[in-house]
């Protein structure tokens, strides 16, 4: 199958690049091995739009973080993605930490982060009274924000799709070669593709893809971060994102509200062998809780909704690797996109997309289709808005997820979106159905039925997250016959 531009990887970076390229006259295909977009690191990270003081001045991380963070408020508004900007504190507990924080403040200033300053203990405790009183000082970053990383990815993918980009999911790239015809030949487990331009945004798999094209090898370390996600509560212990002083393994363990009002604790940082091993471990979770107590002495996992882990693609040399693939024509890449990858993604999309457009002489479309307007979620509507919504579409009257107040109308819409949900997890991330305190105990059978109806597949083919993750193994009829 031929396409002008083939993007490998439908995470937040790949989708951001696809969206920018979809402004141009070119056929675009995005391939991902996951059953959904955002199935890798994009679904399992802290959801922080970092202010941009962490990265060393002059690095791509620093530049793109600050640029990306500046784009977030307007982009989220345009795409209908939740965003808030509560600010962040980085806590210092010693004079040594104070020196580190001073360095970070200086970096922030150099990187062009607005409003970063060092504050003393009293101000910290006045801002966030549940902070460990042993705190000495803190870096305050008023522009630190929160978003929903997978919802951002879905929205980018949808916008690219309405402008013509094709998404091929459940498809894994196995080989990349340059043909005699000058085209890239990409072999997957399902198909053979040819394309003029190849863009590698494959997250934890990006080095593997790079090394298929280049002799200048890259090496990605798979760094796993484990988290606790706690239920929404009446009052959260912290309003802002609470960091600890960074180490060479990353930004350390944070305690932060999520953009949806849950509380997030994590991540750990462990280098692992298997880029797909997103299991959690007793040690990793204990590490997270122990570390959190430094920030929040009363830290508790009471009200835990789930624990999860994500894998960050850490490139050995430490910085993002972005641009044309060295020594190759018509090949571009974004490799080593770990934190602050989410924050930088919109800027990476612009940088890579526009680079490709310029170098390849792409022509801008006469008309770019605007994003599909996102309806307000039922749970956020006023009573009057809810009444109107049901009057317009009676399916808003059928509540499916009682914990998160999600209706049948919204679940069907999530499946019908341009890059729609096909799995229980896909519906969950798009609508929050099953993300509440009962963890889908009540609603998952109904969600499965709706998926089965919308996709015209039997109930026994409905999966949690694609592949062999079927919910049901058969009918009672089959089981009884087999049992005999």
């Amino acid at each position, binding site marked *: 199958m031929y396409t002008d531009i083939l993007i490998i990887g439908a995470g937040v970076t790949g989708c951001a690049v696809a969206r920018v390229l979809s402004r141009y006259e070119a056929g675009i295909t995005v391939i991902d091995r996951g059953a959904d977009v955002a199935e890798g690191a994009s679904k399992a990270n802290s959801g922080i739009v970092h202010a941009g003081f962490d990265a060393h001045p002059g690095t791509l991380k620093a530049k793109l973080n600050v640029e990306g963070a500046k784009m977030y408020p307007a982009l989220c508004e345009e795409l209908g993605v939740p965003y808030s900007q509560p600010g962040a504190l980085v806590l210092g507990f010693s004079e040594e930490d104070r020196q580190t924080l001073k360095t970070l403040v200086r970096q922030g200033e150099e990187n062009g982060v607005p409003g970063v300053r060092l504050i003393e203990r009293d101000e910290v405790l006045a801002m966030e009274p549940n902070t460990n009183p042993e705190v000495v000082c803190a870096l305050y970053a008023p522009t630190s924000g929160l978003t929903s990383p997978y919802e951002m990815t879905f929205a980018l993918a949808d916008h690219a799709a309405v402008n013509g980009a094709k998404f091929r999911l459940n498809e894994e790239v196995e080989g990349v070669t340059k043909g005699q015809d000058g085209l890239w030949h990409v072999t997957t487990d399902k198909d053979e593709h040819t394309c003029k331009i190849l863009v590698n945004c494959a997250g934890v798999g990006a080095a593997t893809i790079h090394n298929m094209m280049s002799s200048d090898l890259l090496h990605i370390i798979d760094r796993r971060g484990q988290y*606790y*996600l706690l239920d929404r509560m009446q009052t959260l212990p912290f309003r802002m994102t609470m960091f600890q002083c960074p180490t060479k393994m990353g930004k350390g363990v944070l305690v932060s509200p999520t953009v949806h009002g849950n509380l997030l604790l994590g991540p750990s940082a462990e280098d692992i062998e298997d880029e*797909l091993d*997103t*299991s*959690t*471990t*007793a040690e*990793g*979770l204990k590490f997270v809780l122990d570390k959190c107590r430094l920030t929040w002495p009363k830290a508790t*996992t009471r009200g*835990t*909704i*789930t*624990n*999860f882990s994500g894998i960050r693609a850490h490139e050995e040399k430490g910085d993002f690797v972005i641009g044309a693939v060295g020594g190759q024509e018509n090949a571009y890449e974004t490799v080593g996109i770990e934190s602050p990858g989410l924050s930088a993604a919109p800027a990476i999309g612009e940088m890579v997309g526009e680079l490709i457009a310029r170098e390849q002489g792409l022509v801008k479309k006469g008309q770019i289709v605007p994003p599909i307007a996102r309806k307000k979620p039922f749970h956020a509507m006023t*009573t*009057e808005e*809810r*009444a109107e919504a*049901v009057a317009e579409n*009676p*399916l*808003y*009257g*059928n*509540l499916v997820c*009682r*914990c998160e*107040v999600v209706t049948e109308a919204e679940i069907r819409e999530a499946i019908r979106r341009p890059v729609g949900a096909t799995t229980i997890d896909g519906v969950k991330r798009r609508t929050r159905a099953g993300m509440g*305190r*009962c*963890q*889908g*105990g*009540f609603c*998952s*059978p109904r969600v499965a039925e709706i998926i089965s109806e919308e996709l015209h597949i039997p*109930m*026994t083919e409905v*999966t*949690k*997250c*694609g*592949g*062999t*993750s*079927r*919910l*049901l*193994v*058969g*009918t*009672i009829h*089959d*089981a*009884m016959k*087999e*049992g*005999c």
Partner: protein
Amino acid sequence: MNSKCVDILVIGAGPAGLAAAIAAKEDGIDNLLVLEREHNPGGILRQCIHNGFGLHRFKEELTGPEYAQRDIDRAREMGIEIQTDTTVLSVDGKTHTVTCVSSAHGVEIITAKAIILAMGCRERPRGALGTPGTRCAGIYSAGTAQKFVNLEGYMPGKRVVILGSGDIGLIMARRMTLQGAKVLACVELMPFSSGLNRNIVQCLNDYDIPLYLSHTVIDIKGRERLTGVTVAKVDANRQPIPGSEIEFDCDTLLLSVGLIPENELSEGAGVKLSPLTSGAEVDDVLQTNLPGIFACGNVLHVHDLVDHVSNESFRAGHAAAAYVRGQLSGGDTLDVRDGDGVRGTVPQRIRKGVSEEVDLMFRPSGVFRNATCIVTCGGREIARKKAPIFTPGEMAVVKLKPEIVAGLDDTVTVTIERS
């Protein structure tokens, strides 16, 4: 937006809501409405197809659907209106207005003189346990699996491990086995089962399913669908003992690790909850801290027996009817406290000066053999009950006779004493 007024609004048409509505109707309350979020009334009994219900109330052994049908039929005969497919979104505890939604009627605002909360309970999910491992398919709460099998006719798995020995888990061990699955083990963290003894006998022992007490699941494996779990023995502090691991190849893990009264609506209304029962704090007629708002059944505290749910709910229905007619005596109350060996006694208060029978219901905090439950009022013994065994798996009930209740003048304390 539609709005209407009723005398009594019942939230939930499970066994609790139906019984409460029937009692209120018996007392002459005609302007009565029951709201139910599912398509059919009957609540969780609809999926409890096993027998063992109704021995106390009907003196015969019924299955869940049969028990529910009796109340549904009775409610229909009496002309009680049950509005199904309707979800309550919020309850205003001060104005007694309830906002609900359905596709048939849109958003409705219903004002009621009295409200009976009968929303039932939900199962504790995996997240609450903090079990590490993968987040693959094949992990269900026992009740979700029960729904798939009994109401939808699908098998959630073929090789099953059950974590927790709550009654639904035990019942599902037998159900899955009978329908053709292999149940490998039932694993319980505590040194005793939290389910009823009869269920250990007829659901596990009858089918040679081993029960591992003082064990838990410490790892969950499988990238897409579950492929196995690791079980380990735990020490006295419930910590896994290294070296005691047992591996099970299974495609399904069912969780039966506790039930939680579903009180989000109650909390939103301003109903005061007990941290011990996770249900409302109520007086002897099941009235919450908010006048005219009553709670009964599993939303109040998790019961073992539907017969007890029905009895409790009749009481709430009668009390709500009396409240609507201005005939419910209020005034001062005396506190009921948990003494040694006792957890979460309901009711938490008894009205002073009434002379009606009161059932004190609680869960023992541990296993006590040949023990006596003693109820005192200001240090004076007012009731006692001996039993060969008190266990957390079985709710205990001590009755206070009307003449005893009439004479109460101080805090009531419930204690279990070892003989």
